[in-house]
């Protein structure tokens, strides 16, 4: 985006960061308590941990890379 202040990528970073924290956090809760949702398949893969972690990582990268005020090259 040119000349519109906060770029869309920053908004995406915020959203992915929040979702990453929530999903990753739930994954940790699942792992620590051993309580897994009924009826959901492949819980042994601990999907919320690695998928939530990925969302969190991408979110942080976007937040830093596209933070408001950072001058685009």
């Amino acid at each position, binding site marked *: 985006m040119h*000349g519109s202040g906060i770029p869309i990528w920053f*908004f995406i970073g915020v959203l992915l960061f929040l*979702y990453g924290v*929530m999903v990753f956090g739930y994954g940790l809760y699942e792992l620590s308590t051993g309580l897994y949702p009924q009826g959901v398949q*492949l*819980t042994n893969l601990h999907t919320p941990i690695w998928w939530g972690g990925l969302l969190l990582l991408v979110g942080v990268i976007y937040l830093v890379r596209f933070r408001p005020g950072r001058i685009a090259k």
Partner: protein
Amino acid sequence: MFDFFSGFPAAGSVTPFPALLAFNTEPLAHLRLLDIAVIAIYFGMVIWIGFYLKGKSNTSEEFFMAGREMTAWVAGLSFVSANMGSLELMGWAGSAYQYGILATHWYWIGAIPAMLFLGLVMMPFYYVSKTHSVPGYLDLRYGGGARTVAALSFAIEMILMSGVNMFAMAVVMKVVLGWDITFSIFVSSIAVALYVGLGGLRSAIFNEVLQFVLIWGGALLVPILGLYQAGGVTGLKTRILTNLQTMSGVNPDSYLHLWRDTGHFASNPMGVHWTGIVLGLGFVISFGYWTTDFLVVQRVLAAHNLRAARMAPIIGSFFKMAVPFIVILPGLLGLVLLQNADGSRRQLVGEDVVAACTLNSASQPENPAACIAAMQKTNLSPESKQKVLAGGADAELHSYNQALPLMMVRYLGPGLLGLGITALIAGFMSGMAGNVSAFSTVWTYDIYQPLINKKGSDSHYVMVGRLAIVVGVLVSIGAAYLVMHAHGIMDYVQALFSIFIAPLLATILLGMFWTRATKLAGFLGLMLGIIFSAGLFMWVKLTPSALATVALSPDAKPMAENVFRALWAFVFAAVIVVVVSLLTKPRPVAELNGLVYGATVLPKEEPVPLYKNEWAWAVLVVIIFAVLNILFW
């Protein structure tokens, strides 16, 4: 979107999906607090974006064209995202379940060549003419008559489609989550009216990019986990061949080939011939949609320069080629992995069968005779039929269109399920917002300004545009309730697009590439083409046996009808434009600069390195496209 095969393309049945409203059954999924929080954050984010962008949408150029300052990436993602509504995701996953890999044609040959053509060949004319809309281009090329016909058709179609989208979302939310229809309609309407009304096209585009990321973030896990469980691609193929052996009348191998079995209508599950795929889908329908539908073209017109405008569809085409991974693959995986609670394979059926076998409060079929008759048409195993008629737990049937939500429920736990549902909601809202923002532009620039008030100030037109969004949303709500109470209307609303787009394509292509095409020819070609196309639609509607004539074979399925109807409407409109042009006086070539190929001097673009050159990227797209088609031949 691509709704011209009906919002839920997999339906292909007598009863449209509003029949699902008759259900009195448990929702597919139950959301936890974490899922609700994920959805609430999404709504908060889209409204925040709308308020944030309000201050940047004060002039008409900013409000209607997003200031023409989008980068190629933003415009490209928005371009492809505006098309990725949830009806599309769920419908094509259902189609893949029903027809196999053939459904991929709608993503590859039904999109990629047209997207490249738009970027490389047509975009310069749209962009250089500085038009604000597709009817605006028709005005410059053919005059006010063609513009008015196109603008009115677009406006009516967009607002009704927005209503259909709204209603469809509400139905899906009711079936999947058990949410109240009115609650879903009003929450989504208020959110869309707020963020588009405040931030205009820029806000719609921002949210489409956001939605694009959400769809991948929410839906990508399903094929990954499904493939893992199925034993990879080899395991999936083996299971499809094994499972489908048990179903009569189907050649299991044909589910896995794109082209091999399209030499005869009857030799593939879709009942379509390769000529229909190439000419009807790959040319008329695809080019009509991707190059002339203002909903998608508007996104590219918002690019900040010509090179970005040309790159945007090419960038979009890479992502479009990848979409089958999150849409078609889950459908195929559902074919072999979905299970009932007792571990038996869950077989999905058409909406009409689901509606006929609706269970009563005692979990027994309400009308056993109707249910038996409906199940006779399916490939359900005798055990499955018996289970349905016996009632009780596990007796409920699910439709093809529920393949994707069922797969989500199978693999996604708390939080992740909320993300998947948010992806579906985002898709619906994006579809509504796209239609409403395009409606606002067409209403203001192509109807209000030329026909009602030519001398308004810039701020007056922005006010009219904002008002059009509010009115558009209100009319959409009305359309949603109309569809709810008169289900048959849905077929007609969804047919509007397919009726209109083929004559429009013929008129625009001849106008853009033939200097001889005249004003009267453009008007008559568009007008009579629409009437002809509508006539073919009504003929088949009133006389179902006419399908064999329109689609060239008695074995043709409803989907083939859309493809061939579009082809005939294109040919008819093109003949009208050519004949009338030859009988009337053309405009001087000098007047066509910026509008027609051969009469336009395109601005010289600065040379760029190969990795920034649109032609180089287009060649790469062509290579990948060819490899994919050969790989899945």
